[in-house]
Protein backbone atom coordinates (compact mmCIF):
# COMPACT_ATOMS: atom_id res chain seq x y z
CA UNK A 1 0.00 0.00 0.00
CA UNK A 2 1.36 3.39 -0.95
CA UNK A 3 2.13 5.71 1.90
CA UNK A 4 1.19 9.35 1.70
CA UNK A 5 4.81 10.37 1.05
CA UNK A 6 4.98 8.09 -2.01
CA UNK A 7 1.94 9.63 -3.69
CA UNK A 8 2.51 12.01 -6.58
CA UNK A 9 1.48 15.59 -5.89
CA UNK A 10 -0.77 16.67 -8.76
CA UNK A 11 -1.43 20.19 -7.58
CA UNK A 12 -1.01 23.00 -10.12
CA UNK A 13 2.31 24.26 -8.76
CA UNK A 14 3.76 20.77 -8.45
CA UNK A 15 2.89 19.95 -12.08
CA UNK A 16 4.30 23.29 -13.32
CA UNK A 17 7.41 22.77 -11.19
CA UNK A 18 8.01 19.25 -12.54
CA UNK A 19 7.40 20.46 -16.10
CA UNK A 20 9.89 23.31 -15.66
CA UNK A 21 12.56 21.00 -14.25
CA UNK A 22 11.98 18.54 -17.11
CA UNK A 23 12.19 21.33 -19.71
CA UNK A 24 15.54 22.57 -18.39
CA UNK A 25 16.81 19.00 -18.06
CA UNK A 26 16.08 18.40 -21.76
CA UNK A 27 17.46 21.81 -22.77
CA UNK A 28 20.67 21.15 -20.83
CA UNK A 29 21.15 17.70 -22.31
CA UNK A 30 20.34 18.93 -25.82
CA UNK A 31 22.82 21.80 -25.47
CA UNK A 32 25.48 19.49 -24.13
CA UNK A 33 24.99 17.10 -27.10
CA UNK A 34 25.27 20.00 -29.54
CA UNK A 35 28.35 21.29 -27.77
CA UNK A 36 29.90 17.80 -27.90
CA UNK A 37 29.12 17.62 -31.61
CA UNK A 38 30.69 21.03 -32.31
CA UNK A 39 33.72 20.53 -30.08
CA UNK A 40 34.46 17.17 -31.74
CA UNK A 41 33.85 18.46 -35.28
CA UNK A 42 37.57 18.11 -36.04
CA UNK A 43 37.18 14.34 -35.69
CA UNK A 44 35.94 13.93 -39.26
CA UNK A 45 37.01 10.27 -39.32
CA UNK A 46 33.95 9.51 -37.16
CA UNK A 47 31.28 11.08 -39.35
CA UNK A 48 32.66 11.42 -42.87
CA UNK A 49 31.64 7.82 -43.59
CA UNK A 50 27.93 8.65 -43.22
CA UNK A 51 27.69 12.21 -44.48
CA UNK A 52 26.87 11.48 -48.14
CA UNK A 53 24.33 8.77 -47.40
CA UNK A 54 22.63 11.14 -44.94
CA UNK A 55 22.65 13.98 -47.48
CA UNK A 56 20.93 11.61 -49.85
CA UNK A 57 18.41 10.47 -47.24
CA UNK A 58 17.68 13.94 -45.85
CA UNK A 59 17.97 15.95 -49.07
CA UNK A 60 17.72 14.06 -52.33
CA UNK A 61 14.86 11.82 -51.23
CA UNK A 62 12.92 14.88 -50.03
CA UNK A 63 13.07 16.69 -53.37
CA UNK A 64 9.76 15.31 -54.73
CA UNK A 65 7.70 16.24 -51.67
CA UNK A 66 9.24 19.72 -51.36
CA UNK A 67 8.69 20.42 -55.06
CA UNK A 68 5.11 19.12 -54.91
CA UNK A 69 4.26 21.23 -51.85
CA UNK A 70 6.03 24.32 -53.24
CA UNK A 71 4.24 24.02 -56.58
CA UNK A 72 0.86 24.10 -54.89
CA UNK A 73 1.85 26.83 -52.42
CA UNK A 74 2.78 28.95 -55.45
CA UNK A 75 -0.48 28.16 -57.22
CA UNK A 76 -2.60 28.94 -54.14
CA UNK A 77 -0.65 32.16 -53.45
CA UNK A 78 -1.31 33.39 -56.99
CA UNK A 79 -4.99 32.54 -56.84
CA UNK A 80 -5.48 34.06 -53.37
CA UNK A 81 -3.63 37.27 -54.18
CA UNK A 82 -5.51 37.70 -57.46
CA UNK A 83 -8.77 37.22 -55.56
CA UNK A 84 -7.88 40.09 -53.19
CA UNK A 85 -6.95 42.57 -55.95
CA UNK A 86 -9.13 45.57 -56.62
CA UNK A 87 -9.69 46.40 -60.26
CA UNK A 88 -7.47 49.50 -60.13
CA UNK A 89 -4.43 47.57 -58.81
CA UNK A 90 -2.01 46.41 -61.56
CA UNK A 91 -2.13 42.66 -62.22
CA UNK A 92 1.66 42.46 -61.89
CA UNK A 93 1.20 42.83 -58.12
CA UNK A 94 0.26 39.15 -58.07
CA UNK A 95 3.78 38.22 -59.21
CA UNK A 96 5.30 40.64 -56.69
CA UNK A 97 3.22 39.23 -53.87
CA UNK A 98 3.91 35.60 -54.81
CA UNK A 99 7.70 35.91 -55.01
CA UNK A 100 8.00 37.87 -51.76
CA UNK A 101 5.75 35.60 -49.76
CA UNK A 102 7.19 32.40 -51.22
CA UNK A 103 10.85 33.24 -50.71
CA UNK A 104 10.54 34.98 -47.38
CA UNK A 105 7.97 32.85 -45.66
CA UNK A 106 5.80 30.23 -47.28
CA UNK A 107 8.29 27.86 -48.93
CA UNK A 108 10.81 27.80 -46.04
CA UNK A 109 8.14 27.49 -43.34
CA UNK A 110 5.74 25.03 -44.91
CA UNK A 111 8.56 22.89 -46.32
CA UNK A 112 10.17 22.84 -42.86
CA UNK A 113 6.93 21.68 -41.27
CA UNK A 114 6.54 18.95 -43.91
CA UNK A 115 10.19 17.93 -43.46
CA UNK A 116 9.82 17.90 -39.67
CA UNK A 117 7.33 15.10 -40.29
CA UNK A 118 9.30 13.29 -42.97
CA UNK A 119 12.97 13.78 -42.09
CA UNK A 120 12.61 14.43 -38.35
CA UNK A 121 10.37 11.44 -37.70
CA UNK A 122 12.59 9.15 -39.78
CA UNK A 123 15.75 10.19 -37.93
CA UNK A 124 14.16 9.79 -34.49
CA UNK A 125 12.60 6.43 -35.31
CA UNK A 126 15.90 5.16 -36.71
CA UNK A 127 18.06 6.39 -33.84
CA UNK A 128 15.48 5.53 -31.19
CA UNK A 129 15.39 1.95 -32.47
CA UNK A 130 19.18 1.89 -32.36
CA UNK A 131 19.06 3.08 -28.75
CA UNK A 132 16.47 0.61 -27.46
CA UNK A 133 18.12 -2.32 -29.27
CA UNK A 134 21.50 -1.37 -27.74
CA UNK A 135 23.08 -0.58 -31.12
CA UNK A 136 24.25 2.81 -29.78
CA UNK A 137 25.77 1.08 -26.74
CA UNK A 138 27.44 -1.34 -29.15
CA UNK A 139 28.95 1.60 -31.06
CA UNK A 140 30.30 3.05 -27.80
CA UNK A 141 31.57 -0.37 -26.77
CA UNK A 142 33.48 -0.57 -30.08
CA UNK A 143 35.28 2.65 -29.00
CA UNK A 144 33.37 4.92 -31.40
CA UNK A 145 32.21 8.41 -30.49
CA UNK A 146 28.53 7.67 -31.05
CA UNK A 147 27.44 11.33 -31.07
CA UNK A 148 29.97 12.24 -33.76
CA UNK A 149 29.22 9.04 -35.66
CA UNK A 150 25.42 9.29 -35.61
CA UNK A 151 24.33 12.86 -34.86
CA UNK A 152 26.96 14.98 -36.64
CA UNK A 153 26.38 13.60 -40.18
CA UNK A 154 22.61 13.92 -39.86
CA UNK A 155 22.71 17.49 -38.55
CA UNK A 156 25.30 18.47 -41.16
CA UNK A 157 23.20 16.89 -43.90
CA UNK A 158 20.09 18.77 -42.72
CA UNK A 159 21.91 22.08 -42.43
CA UNK A 160 23.42 21.74 -45.91
CA UNK A 161 20.50 20.17 -47.77
CA UNK A 162 17.53 22.19 -46.44
CA UNK A 163 18.69 25.45 -48.11
CA UNK A 164 19.22 23.59 -51.39
CA UNK A 165 15.71 22.15 -51.14
CA UNK A 166 14.31 25.60 -50.41
CA UNK A 167 16.08 27.12 -53.44
CA UNK A 168 14.51 24.46 -55.68
CA UNK A 169 11.20 24.84 -53.85
CA UNK A 170 11.10 28.62 -54.27
CA UNK A 171 11.84 28.33 -57.98
CA UNK A 172 9.12 25.73 -58.49
CA UNK A 173 6.76 27.79 -56.30
CA UNK A 174 7.18 30.76 -58.63
CA UNK A 175 6.49 28.49 -61.62
CA UNK A 176 3.47 27.15 -59.75
CA UNK A 177 2.26 30.70 -59.23
CA UNK A 178 2.47 31.26 -62.98
CA UNK A 179 0.51 28.07 -63.65
CA UNK A 180 -2.06 29.06 -61.02
CA UNK A 181 -2.36 32.56 -62.45
CA UNK A 182 -2.91 31.25 -66.00
CA UNK A 183 -5.28 28.43 -65.04
CA UNK A 184 -7.43 30.01 -62.36
CA UNK A 185 -7.24 33.82 -62.66
CA UNK A 186 -7.40 36.51 -65.29
CA UNK A 187 -3.82 37.65 -64.57
CA UNK A 188 -1.82 37.48 -67.82
CA UNK A 189 1.48 35.56 -67.78
CA UNK A 190 3.37 38.69 -68.91
CA UNK A 191 2.03 40.75 -65.99
CA UNK A 192 2.91 37.99 -63.52
CA UNK A 193 6.46 37.64 -64.89
CA UNK A 194 6.86 41.44 -64.89
CA UNK A 195 5.85 41.51 -61.22
CA UNK A 196 8.36 38.76 -60.39
CA UNK A 197 11.24 40.47 -62.22
CA UNK A 198 10.43 43.85 -60.75
CA UNK A 199 10.25 42.67 -57.14
CA UNK A 200 12.96 40.01 -56.87
CA UNK A 201 15.68 40.98 -54.41
CA UNK A 202 18.76 38.97 -53.54
CA UNK A 203 18.31 39.92 -49.88
CA UNK A 204 14.93 38.11 -49.81
CA UNK A 205 16.59 35.01 -51.20
CA UNK A 206 19.25 35.34 -48.49
CA UNK A 207 16.58 35.49 -45.76
CA UNK A 208 14.87 32.39 -47.21
CA UNK A 209 18.16 30.50 -47.31
CA UNK A 210 19.06 31.64 -43.79
CA UNK A 211 15.70 30.42 -42.52
CA UNK A 212 16.14 27.09 -44.29
CA UNK A 213 19.62 26.65 -42.78
CA UNK A 214 18.35 27.36 -39.27
CA UNK A 215 15.29 25.13 -39.75
CA UNK A 216 17.46 22.32 -41.12
CA UNK A 217 19.74 22.49 -38.10
CA UNK A 218 16.83 22.77 -35.66
CA UNK A 219 14.80 19.87 -37.07
CA UNK A 220 17.68 17.41 -37.49
CA UNK A 221 19.35 18.22 -34.16
CA UNK A 222 16.04 17.96 -32.32
CA UNK A 223 15.26 14.66 -34.08
CA UNK A 224 18.70 13.26 -33.30
CA UNK A 225 18.45 14.30 -29.66
CA UNK A 226 15.02 12.69 -29.24
CA UNK A 227 16.16 9.46 -30.88
CA UNK A 228 19.54 9.28 -29.18
CA UNK A 229 18.00 9.55 -25.72
CA UNK A 230 14.84 7.52 -26.42
CA UNK A 231 13.95 4.95 -23.81
CA UNK A 232 11.15 2.55 -23.04
CA UNK A 233 11.12 0.12 -25.98
CA UNK A 234 8.97 0.55 -29.06
CA UNK A 235 6.43 2.63 -27.15
CA UNK A 236 9.22 5.01 -26.12
CA UNK A 237 10.43 5.28 -29.72
CA UNK A 238 6.88 6.13 -30.83
CA UNK A 239 6.63 8.78 -28.13
CA UNK A 240 10.03 10.24 -29.06
CA UNK A 241 9.01 10.38 -32.73
CA UNK A 242 5.81 12.24 -31.89
CA UNK A 243 7.76 14.63 -29.65
CA UNK A 244 10.20 15.31 -32.48
CA UNK A 245 7.43 16.42 -34.82
CA UNK A 246 5.74 18.57 -32.17
CA UNK A 247 8.92 20.18 -30.78
CA UNK A 248 10.43 20.69 -34.25
CA UNK A 249 7.29 22.43 -35.56
CA UNK A 250 7.07 24.65 -32.49
CA UNK A 251 10.78 25.50 -32.66
CA UNK A 252 10.54 26.27 -36.37
CA UNK A 253 7.72 28.79 -35.95
CA UNK A 254 9.55 30.47 -33.05
CA UNK A 255 12.82 30.62 -35.04
CA UNK A 256 10.83 31.93 -38.02
CA UNK A 257 9.54 34.83 -35.96
CA UNK A 258 12.99 35.60 -34.53
CA UNK A 259 14.66 35.65 -37.95
CA UNK A 260 11.84 37.71 -39.45
CA UNK A 261 12.07 40.22 -36.61
CA UNK A 262 15.84 40.56 -36.79
CA UNK A 263 16.42 40.53 -40.55
CA UNK A 264 13.33 42.11 -42.16
Amino acid at each position, binding site marked *: MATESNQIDNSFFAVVGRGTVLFFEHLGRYSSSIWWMLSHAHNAKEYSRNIFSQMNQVGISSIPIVLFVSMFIGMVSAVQSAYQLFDWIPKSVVGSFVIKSLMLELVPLISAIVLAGKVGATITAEMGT*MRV*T*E*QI*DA*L*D*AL*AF*DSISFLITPRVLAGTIMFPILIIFGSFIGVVGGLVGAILATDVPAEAYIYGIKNTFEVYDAFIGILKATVFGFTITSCACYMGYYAQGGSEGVGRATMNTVVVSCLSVVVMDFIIASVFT
Partner: protein
Amino acid sequence: MIRLENIHKKFGEQEVHKGITFTARDRETIVILGKSGGGKSVLLKMIIGLIKPDIGTIEVDGKDVSKMTFPELQKLRFKFGFLFQNAALFDSMSVGENIALALERHSNYTKDEVIDRVEYALNVVGLENSAHKMPSQLSGGMKKRVGLARAVVLTPKYMLYDEPTTGLDMETADGINLLINELKNTIGMTSIAVTHDIHSAFLIGDRFTIFDKGKVRMTGTKEEILNSNDEEIRKYIQSEIETKG
Protein backbone atom coordinates in the same frame (compact mmCIF):
# COMPACT_ATOMS: atom_id res chain seq x y z
CA MET B 1 42.24 -7.89 -13.73
CA ILE B 2 38.84 -6.25 -13.21
CA ARG B 3 37.88 -5.22 -9.69
CA LEU B 4 34.57 -3.77 -8.55
CA GLU B 5 34.48 -2.29 -5.07
CA ASN B 6 31.35 -1.29 -3.15
CA ILE B 7 29.27 -0.36 -6.22
CA HIS B 8 26.00 1.48 -5.55
CA LYS B 9 23.58 2.52 -8.29
CA LYS B 10 20.08 3.99 -8.22
CA PHE B 11 17.70 4.58 -11.12
CA GLY B 12 15.11 7.03 -9.82
CA GLU B 13 13.83 5.54 -6.60
CA GLN B 14 15.00 2.02 -7.43
CA GLU B 15 18.34 1.03 -5.93
CA VAL B 16 19.70 -1.79 -8.11
CA HIS B 17 23.17 -2.13 -6.57
CA LYS B 18 23.72 -1.88 -2.83
CA GLY B 19 27.44 -2.39 -2.45
CA ILE B 20 28.61 -4.89 -5.08
CA THR B 21 32.18 -6.11 -4.70
CA PHE B 22 33.92 -8.77 -6.75
CA THR B 23 37.06 -9.43 -8.79
CA ALA B 24 37.60 -11.08 -12.16
CA ARG B 25 41.11 -12.53 -12.19
CA ASP B 26 43.23 -12.71 -15.33
CA ARG B 27 42.27 -15.45 -17.80
CA GLU B 28 39.28 -16.66 -15.82
CA THR B 29 35.60 -16.61 -16.73
CA ILE B 30 33.43 -15.35 -13.92
CA VAL B 31 29.68 -15.75 -14.31
CA ILE B 32 27.23 -13.43 -12.57
CA LEU B 33 24.02 -15.22 -11.74
CA GLY B 34 20.81 -13.72 -10.45
CA LYS B 35 17.19 -13.00 -11.17
CA SER B 36 16.15 -10.85 -14.14
CA GLY B 37 16.01 -7.13 -13.42
CA GLY B 38 18.70 -7.35 -10.77
CA GLY B 39 21.09 -4.94 -12.49
CA LYS B 40 23.49 -7.53 -13.89
CA SER B 41 23.62 -6.03 -17.38
CA VAL B 42 24.04 -2.54 -15.91
CA LEU B 43 27.17 -3.79 -14.17
CA LEU B 44 28.72 -4.86 -17.50
CA LYS B 45 28.00 -1.43 -18.97
CA MET B 46 29.62 0.16 -15.91
CA ILE B 47 32.82 -1.79 -16.51
CA ILE B 48 33.35 -0.09 -19.90
CA GLY B 49 32.12 3.28 -18.67
CA LEU B 50 28.77 3.43 -20.47
CA ILE B 51 27.06 3.95 -17.11
CA LYS B 52 28.70 5.48 -14.04
CA PRO B 53 28.18 4.11 -10.53
CA ASP B 54 26.79 6.50 -7.89
CA ILE B 55 29.33 5.24 -5.35
CA GLY B 56 32.22 2.80 -5.62
CA THR B 57 35.19 2.13 -7.86
CA ILE B 58 35.68 -0.05 -10.92
CA GLU B 59 39.30 -0.80 -11.72
CA VAL B 60 40.55 -2.31 -14.95
CA ASP B 61 44.29 -3.07 -14.97
CA GLY B 62 44.57 -0.90 -11.84
CA LYS B 63 42.92 2.21 -13.36
CA ASP B 64 39.63 3.66 -12.07
CA VAL B 65 37.12 3.65 -14.94
CA SER B 66 34.81 6.29 -13.45
CA LYS B 67 37.64 8.86 -13.35
CA MET B 68 38.71 8.33 -16.97
CA THR B 69 38.44 11.06 -19.61
CA PHE B 70 36.70 10.25 -22.91
CA PRO B 71 39.94 9.46 -24.82
CA GLU B 72 41.03 7.22 -21.94
CA LEU B 73 37.66 5.49 -22.00
CA GLN B 74 38.00 4.89 -25.73
CA LYS B 75 41.41 3.30 -25.16
CA LEU B 76 39.91 1.16 -22.42
CA ARG B 77 36.99 0.03 -24.61
CA PHE B 78 39.48 -1.01 -27.24
CA LYS B 79 40.59 -3.75 -24.82
CA PHE B 80 37.05 -5.10 -24.48
CA GLY B 81 34.74 -7.24 -26.54
CA PHE B 82 31.05 -7.01 -25.65
CA LEU B 83 28.39 -9.50 -26.69
CA PHE B 84 25.03 -7.83 -26.15
CA GLN B 85 21.87 -9.67 -25.12
CA ASN B 86 20.26 -9.42 -28.57
CA ALA B 87 23.59 -9.11 -30.36
CA ALA B 88 22.88 -5.40 -31.17
CA LEU B 89 23.98 -5.76 -34.79
CA PHE B 90 23.74 -2.58 -36.86
CA ASP B 91 20.57 -3.04 -38.95
CA SER B 92 21.71 -0.86 -41.79
CA MET B 93 24.95 -2.79 -42.34
CA SER B 94 25.59 -6.26 -43.70
CA VAL B 95 27.14 -8.94 -41.51
CA GLY B 96 30.54 -8.26 -43.07
CA GLU B 97 30.24 -4.50 -42.53
CA ASN B 98 29.24 -5.07 -38.89
CA ILE B 99 32.43 -7.01 -38.26
CA ALA B 100 34.63 -4.79 -40.42
CA LEU B 101 33.51 -1.55 -38.76
CA ALA B 102 35.89 -1.74 -35.78
CA LEU B 103 38.71 -3.10 -37.95
CA GLU B 104 38.45 -0.21 -40.39
CA ARG B 105 38.31 2.32 -37.56
CA HIS B 106 40.90 0.94 -35.15
CA SER B 107 43.47 -0.94 -37.23
CA ASN B 108 45.85 -0.26 -40.07
CA TYR B 109 44.72 -3.22 -42.16
CA THR B 110 44.31 -2.74 -45.89
CA LYS B 111 40.89 -3.35 -47.46
CA ASP B 112 41.90 -6.86 -48.54
CA GLU B 113 43.24 -7.65 -45.10
CA VAL B 114 39.98 -6.46 -43.52
CA ILE B 115 38.00 -8.75 -45.85
CA ASP B 116 40.28 -11.66 -44.92
CA ARG B 117 39.90 -10.94 -41.18
CA VAL B 118 36.12 -10.73 -41.52
CA GLU B 119 36.01 -14.07 -43.36
CA TYR B 120 38.29 -15.61 -40.75
CA ALA B 121 36.10 -14.32 -37.89
CA LEU B 122 33.00 -15.69 -39.63
CA ASN B 123 34.73 -19.05 -40.11
CA VAL B 124 35.55 -19.18 -36.41
CA VAL B 125 31.87 -18.75 -35.49
CA GLY B 126 30.74 -21.18 -38.19
CA LEU B 127 29.12 -18.68 -40.55
CA GLU B 128 31.21 -18.99 -43.69
CA ASN B 129 29.97 -17.05 -46.73
CA SER B 130 27.51 -14.97 -44.68
CA ALA B 131 29.30 -11.62 -44.99
CA HIS B 132 26.81 -10.27 -47.55
CA LYS B 133 23.70 -11.10 -45.51
CA MET B 134 21.74 -8.45 -43.59
CA PRO B 135 21.01 -8.92 -39.87
CA SER B 136 17.27 -9.19 -40.64
CA GLN B 137 18.01 -12.38 -42.61
CA LEU B 138 19.60 -14.12 -39.62
CA SER B 139 18.12 -16.27 -36.86
CA GLY B 140 18.66 -15.39 -33.17
CA GLY B 141 21.51 -17.88 -32.83
CA MET B 142 23.22 -16.64 -36.00
CA LYS B 143 22.95 -13.04 -34.78
CA LYS B 144 24.65 -14.04 -31.52
CA ARG B 145 27.44 -15.68 -33.53
CA VAL B 146 27.93 -12.57 -35.64
CA GLY B 147 27.86 -10.46 -32.46
CA LEU B 148 30.56 -12.71 -31.06
CA ALA B 149 32.64 -12.45 -34.25
CA ARG B 150 32.33 -8.65 -34.12
CA ALA B 151 33.33 -8.61 -30.44
CA VAL B 152 36.44 -10.76 -30.84
CA VAL B 153 37.70 -9.65 -34.26
CA LEU B 154 40.22 -7.29 -32.63
CA THR B 155 41.29 -10.04 -30.15
CA PRO B 156 40.34 -8.16 -26.99
CA LYS B 157 41.95 -8.76 -23.63
CA TYR B 158 38.60 -8.81 -21.84
CA MET B 159 35.24 -10.17 -22.94
CA LEU B 160 31.83 -9.26 -21.53
CA TYR B 161 28.83 -11.49 -22.29
CA ASP B 162 25.32 -10.23 -21.57
CA GLU B 163 22.95 -13.22 -21.46
CA PRO B 164 24.82 -15.07 -24.24
CA THR B 165 22.29 -17.89 -24.55
CA THR B 166 18.98 -16.23 -23.65
CA GLY B 167 16.21 -16.90 -26.13
CA LEU B 168 18.08 -19.71 -27.88
CA ASP B 169 17.10 -23.37 -28.06
CA MET B 170 19.24 -25.87 -26.12
CA GLU B 171 21.26 -27.00 -29.14
CA THR B 172 22.06 -23.47 -30.36
CA ALA B 173 22.84 -22.37 -26.80
CA ASP B 174 25.30 -25.24 -26.39
CA GLY B 175 26.92 -24.19 -29.69
CA ILE B 176 27.41 -20.67 -28.32
CA ASN B 177 28.78 -22.03 -25.03
CA LEU B 178 31.24 -24.20 -26.93
CA LEU B 179 32.33 -21.19 -28.95
CA ILE B 180 32.84 -19.10 -25.80
CA ASN B 181 35.06 -21.82 -24.33
CA GLU B 182 37.01 -22.17 -27.60
CA LEU B 183 37.62 -18.42 -27.74
CA LYS B 184 38.74 -18.38 -24.14
CA ASN B 185 41.19 -21.22 -24.76
CA THR B 186 42.60 -19.83 -28.02
CA ILE B 187 42.74 -16.11 -27.18
CA GLY B 188 43.10 -16.48 -23.41
CA MET B 189 40.68 -13.71 -22.51
CA THR B 190 39.41 -12.70 -19.09
CA SER B 191 35.64 -12.89 -19.29
CA ILE B 192 32.63 -11.77 -17.31
CA ALA B 193 29.32 -13.32 -18.30
CA VAL B 194 25.91 -12.35 -17.01
CA THR B 195 23.15 -14.91 -17.21
CA HIS B 196 20.22 -16.47 -15.44
CA ASP B 197 20.75 -19.71 -17.39
CA ILE B 198 22.44 -21.96 -14.81
CA HIS B 199 23.11 -24.72 -17.34
CA SER B 200 25.14 -22.36 -19.58
CA ALA B 201 26.80 -20.76 -16.57
CA PHE B 202 28.22 -24.08 -15.39
CA LEU B 203 29.46 -24.87 -18.91
CA ILE B 204 31.45 -21.67 -19.39
CA GLY B 205 32.31 -20.41 -15.89
CA ASP B 206 35.37 -20.93 -13.67
CA ARG B 207 33.83 -19.02 -10.75
CA PHE B 208 30.35 -17.77 -10.02
CA THR B 209 28.91 -14.73 -8.26
CA ILE B 210 25.29 -14.82 -7.19
CA PHE B 211 23.44 -11.51 -6.92
CA ASP B 212 20.47 -11.15 -4.63
CA LYS B 213 18.57 -7.94 -3.88
CA GLY B 214 21.37 -5.71 -5.16
CA LYS B 215 24.16 -7.44 -3.21
CA VAL B 216 26.59 -10.29 -3.77
CA ARG B 217 25.16 -13.27 -1.95
CA MET B 218 28.04 -15.63 -2.66
CA THR B 219 31.10 -16.06 -4.89
CA GLY B 220 32.70 -19.44 -5.48
CA THR B 221 33.40 -22.37 -7.76
CA LYS B 222 30.69 -24.66 -9.12
CA GLU B 223 31.26 -27.13 -6.28
CA GLU B 224 31.16 -24.40 -3.63
CA ILE B 225 27.91 -23.05 -5.06
CA LEU B 226 26.28 -26.48 -5.31
CA ASN B 227 27.36 -27.43 -1.78
CA SER B 228 26.43 -24.08 -0.23
CA ASN B 229 24.68 -24.17 3.12
CA ASP B 230 22.86 -20.93 2.32
CA GLU B 231 19.19 -21.88 2.06
CA GLU B 232 18.39 -19.01 -0.38
CA ILE B 233 21.16 -20.09 -2.77
CA ARG B 234 20.08 -23.73 -2.63
CA LYS B 235 16.50 -22.68 -3.42
CA TYR B 236 17.67 -20.43 -6.28
CA ILE B 237 19.89 -23.11 -7.85
CA GLN B 238 17.18 -25.73 -7.46
CA SER B 239 14.52 -23.54 -9.09
CA GLU B 240 16.83 -22.65 -11.99
CA ILE B 241 17.70 -26.30 -12.60
CA GLU B 242 14.00 -27.25 -12.53
CA THR B 243 13.10 -24.39 -14.90
CA LYS B 244 15.68 -25.59 -17.39
CA GLY B 245 14.49 -29.19 -17.01
